[in-house]
């Protein structure tokens, strides 16, 4: 056998499956033959001509983050309409309520960015006097009413917003 050919770490046959991942600063590599890879739970397709890499990538994604991404990608905020996928694409959330709507997807990202998931520090003196989202909800209803051309409802909602604002200040 050509000495440049990678050998399977488990059985010494020619390795056809090469995996690498980075954990913190260290890079881990694994080289396996098709048989050992299947035994390890990585299903490399036997049939020749199948794009091996693509299917492997798909499987790895599903295995590690698949369900989460699948479920989350369909999650959207009921108030502003932004989906988790949209947020992941441009990095911007749509409204304060998104932090609740995406409560499952955000912690790993917060951990990665800050090494923490809980606030420590200043608390506004008036925090909690008024539930977050009251005005957001009314505004979201207002947007819907305008989209449906229900102008009577829109006028009612505008009044309500004005009252809420007066009340707040």
């Amino acid at each position, binding site marked *: 056998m050509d000495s440049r050919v990678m050998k399977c770490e488990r059985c010494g046959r020619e390795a056809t499956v090469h995996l690498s991942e980075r954990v913190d600063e260290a890079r881990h590599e694994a080289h396996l033959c098709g048989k050992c890879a299947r035994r390890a739970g990585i299903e490399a397709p036997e049939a020749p001509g199948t794009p091996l890499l693509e299917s492997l990538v798909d499987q790895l994604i599903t295995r590690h983050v698949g369900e989460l991404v699948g479920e989350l990608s369909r999650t959207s905020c009921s108030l502003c309409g932004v989906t988790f996928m949209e947020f992941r694409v441009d990095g911007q959330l749509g409204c*304060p309520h998104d932090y609740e709507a995406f409560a499952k997807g955000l912690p790993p990202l917060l951990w990665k*960015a800050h090494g923490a998931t809980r*606030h420590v520090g*200043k608390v506004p*003196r*008036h925090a909690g006097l008024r539930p977050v989202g009251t*005005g957001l909800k009314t505004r979201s209803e207002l947007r819907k009413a305008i989209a449906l051309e229900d102008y009577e409802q829109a006028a009612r909602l505008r009044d309500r917003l004005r009252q809420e*604002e007066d009340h707040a200040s």
Partner: protein
Amino acid sequence: MNLDELSRTSGEWLRGDGPESDIVMCSRIRLARNLADFPFSGRASKGEKADVERAVRTTIDRAGLRLTYYSLMDVDQLDRQMLVERQLISRELAAGDGPRGVAIGHEENASIMVNEEDHLRIQVMHSGFSLGDVWERINRLDDDLEERLGYAFSPQLGYLTACPTNVGTGIRVGVLLHLPALVHTKQIEKVFRALHKINLTVRGLYGEGTQADGDFYQISNQQTLGKSERELIRNLSEVVPQILSYERQARKEMINQRRQVLHDQVSRAYGLLKTAQTISSSETMLLLSSVRLGINLGLIDDLEIPTVNELFIHTQPAHLQKLHGSPLEVDERNIARAAFLRRRLANGKSTGPEVEE
């Protein structure tokens, strides 16, 4: 004060006093805040942005904050660029659309951007190394605003921001440092690498993604969640003196080992600035940096630091055009810049910005 007057003055943060002001140009803190009842600016309709703007303006008036509000819808492109050059607004706010603006305080120490990425970006800057004072001031300002504005806040995640990289305290603590000797002795990269390792960011004078001009670097925190404002301020405050000592050490070595060469270099830079007939913005920054170093090392004695600090800002494109009173093409700007420099440097000690020929 209208914006034309503003262009002829300069902010307190350029005054060149305060602790360690030979290296620390200014200390700055910004807080990102959002109103609980509105979508974030990027998702808000024109009407909603107008409502946010109105709420903030009303609050500023009622709280008696001594800030002047400028709606950017009424400010032309040149004036917007001038505000960017003065560090009062971001490029993003200048280039944005819809209802948005900035409230600017006396002496330009404080500014509040409205409808940037977050509804409010509050900023306070002071000349020199004085993060403690800056925090006292911005904390009070934030309290005053919070009395009347319903901030988006969650007990677990803190102040909620459009981008989760700012959530929690929403704070960015920064210092603007002049580090010519570390650049000259090629040690600056090493310093940057060390800073990155402890989660601090380095930017140029004009914000993210721009090349550092005039050997000025802004160093600030990245983490905003999980550490208190005071801790984050303390972290940065502990690191800055180390950078200062590296810069001072590098300056000492430069002057001990090659005083003559350095003196020559600094004098030539000064000479060029005083006599050039046409000069680009980047060459100006480079030469001003040399001159600033020269003053601090006692190699130039007829020019004062505040004058040099101001020139870094007043020779920027929008400022030159404001001073000139009409738009200028690049070539015309280079000529106008050289003329302005000759005028201002004719007598280093007594040149007020309003002294015109």
